[in-house]
């Protein structure tokens, strides 16, 4: 293929033009604010693995903000500005953080996994802004992961250790005294919950019959070793099978189907990750004797009337957003933020807000009372809702609270 000199120059120009276009794109001015509302900049995942957690939290938070704005926060209104991180792509995440900050965000909200959130968190902390993840479920959203700057980082998700401990308590209370563990190692949170379950379960006197691990194909392409995990468990019967993985990922359903089709009808216990009915099979064998603990009962049977009302409103607008109880983390974060602003006398300075939040002790939010401490910036002591899925139907089975958290990160 012959290219004339002129054509090649032209190509170079075209390439340059593409860049100019991108540059022109950049020549935008950020919006100015006259009335000085409180601006929350929310970088959320609109299409990646965190989307099922981020978007419901955001949708519910927007409803909560509308409610808060009726009275205002000391006369000011809250505005949420959003930015799509597109599967938590690092470059886009970083850009989102910078963009939101340039749009005058006073507080930055981020996605539900601490690693995927890292680009946003680091940018936000660099600008000394209070940085909140509604639902990161580990103890790492805080100084533990981000050092001194991490003082400004908080999560309204559960500490995995607390959740695992509550699950152990539930199993013990049900009289399931031996357990098989299958750890999905693709996310820190999954691992941490199982580890905590094991520690607390043994403390209570339970016995672990068999332990195995697998990698979920949603994050580890092509991995199918959950089949092997299932057949390992088939050969080592116990009273309960504990696995923590997301219903929206690739292993949950086939793992359960493997066990059930092999004739293993033991209860299977999962955490909030396995909440919801959206992943249940539309055909084929139905899911039965499957248990999980979660933030809120998304199916209208929550002890809190406010939660049930919110779930109903969300479901009416978009059923997806009420698929799991995770949506309450959004309003909970808003409630917590409002309290912090009030307690900081209206200051939006990251350091002041963080200083107040560090002292949170049983602060009421939509998802119950929330406490933080100097070391621990995630929620513990939640009253978990217990749900059993039987024949593809979710049934409320009361609540459970962790009494003791072994290896507590707060200790």
């Amino acid at each position, binding site marked *: 293929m012959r290219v004339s000199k002129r054509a090649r120059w032209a190509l170079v120009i075209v390439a340059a033009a593409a860049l100019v276009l991108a540059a022109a794109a950049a020549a935008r001015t950020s919006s100015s604010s006259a009335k000085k509302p409180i601006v929350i900049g929310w970088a959320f995942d609109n*299409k*990646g*693995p965190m*989307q*099922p957690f981020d978007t419901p939290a955001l949708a519910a938070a927007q409803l909560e903000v509308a409610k808060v704005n009726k009275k205002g926060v000391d006369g000011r209104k809250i505005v949420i500005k959003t930015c799509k991180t597109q*599967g938590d792509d690092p470059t886009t995440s970083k850009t989102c953080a910078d963009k939101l900050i340039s749009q005058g965000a006073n507080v930055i909200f981020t996605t539900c996994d601490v690693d995927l959130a890292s680009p946003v968190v680091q940018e936000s902390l660099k600008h000394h802004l209070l940085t909140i993840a509604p639902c990161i479920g580990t103890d790492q959203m805080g100084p533990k992961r981000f050092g001194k700057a991490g003082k400004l980082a908080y999560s309204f998700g559960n500490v995995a250790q607390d959740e695992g401990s509550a699950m152990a308590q539930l199993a013990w209370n049900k009289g399931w005294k031996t357990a098989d563990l299958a750890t999905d*190692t693709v996310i820190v949170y999954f691992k941490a919950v199982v580890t905590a379950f094991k520690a607390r379960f043994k403390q209570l006197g339970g016995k672990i019959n068999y*332990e*195995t*691990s*697998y*990698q979920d*194909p*949603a994050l*580890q*392409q*092509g*991995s*199918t*070793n959950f*089949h*092997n*995990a299932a*057949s*390992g468990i088939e050969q080592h019967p116990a009273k309960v099978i504990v696995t923590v993985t997301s219903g*929206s*990922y*690739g*292993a*949950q*359903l*086939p793992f359960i*189907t*493997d066990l059930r*089709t*092999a*004739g293993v009808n033991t209860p299977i216990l999962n955490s909030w990750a396995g909440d919801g009915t959206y*992943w*249940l*099979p*539309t*055909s*084929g*064998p139905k899911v039965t004797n499957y248990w999980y603990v979660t933030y809120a009962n998304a199916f209208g049977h929550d002890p809190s009337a406010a939660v049930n009302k919110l779930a109903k409103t969300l479901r009416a607008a978009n059923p997806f957003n009420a698929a799991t109880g995770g949506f309450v983390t959004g309003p909970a974060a808003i409630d917590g933020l409002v309290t912090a602003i009030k307690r900081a006398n209206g200051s939006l300075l990251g350091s002041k807000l963080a200083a107040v939040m560090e002292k949170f002790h049983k602060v009421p939010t939509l998802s119950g009372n929330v406490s933080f401490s100097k070391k621990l910036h995630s929620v513990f002591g939640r009253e978990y809702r217990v749900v059993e899925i039987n024949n593809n139907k979710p049934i409320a089975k009361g609540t459970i609270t962790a009494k003791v958290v072994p290896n507590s990160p707060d200790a």
Partner: protein
Amino acid sequence: MTLAFLNLTWPTFANGLALGGVYALMAVGIGLVFGVLRLVNFAYGQLIMAGAFALAFGSQWGFPNWASILFCFGVVLGLSVLMDLLVFRPLRTHSPAVMLVATFAVAFLLQNIALLAFGPLGKSAGALAILNAPWDIGGVFIKKIAVISFATAVGCLVILQLLLTRTPLGLHMRAAAMDFRTARLLGVRANWVISGAVIVSGLFAAVSAVMLSVQELTVVPTFGTQDTILVLAGVVLGGLNRPIPATLGGFSIGFANGILGGVLPSNQSQYLPSFLFAAVIVVLLVRPNGLFARGGGTVERV
């Protein structure tokens, strides 16, 4: 009765055979198209993904199983033919590297279309999940799908072998794979042969889609990608140019994948890909022209 070797059990052995069978089909699908077009189709995994999604939607819309499977075949075949018309044919005369990267582009495009249309979390293809139940064979519990996969793979391969050896089209395909130019000079119709290869390859992709989606149950946009890479490795390991070595290569890597997955202790199972690919590299170093290749055939430069 157990296979008293490592912790290899009969069910694991059966799973290995089943995966080996499906990979062998994929290997043949990739090998046939390579034979006539000298094109390594990286987008083969996306064909399987599309088929698996078709199956999932079929069961969601309440199709009976046979209709879902038919729908799956239709989607995969349509997509294969479209891929061939829009991309492979215009690029037929270009270098293997350009064709290979073009299939990257197609794979990238299809995967992202799936991501946009169906989301990252995919769909459950539960219609045939019941096939994961075991059969009791003399006290050993073997999954039905393992037996069915292996039997289907063997059946498909036998039919293909008959097609290749007993029909004029098969003869023409074999000749075109050896020397396309001469075959055309003899009157072998290039377009027919290419279409034949693309259609058979598509059919095998559809069969693989059904078998794999029963085993994995959840269909995500990356479905089949890793399998395709493994199969490609297997095909090259066997010898890309000929159907039988390619089949054996694909089978070997699938079998090894299934068995290793079963016998690796759980704290090492995450390193399964490392073990497999390390083995692939070692074999390639020892036998660069493939495990089952006779003599030193010329290897395509890409």
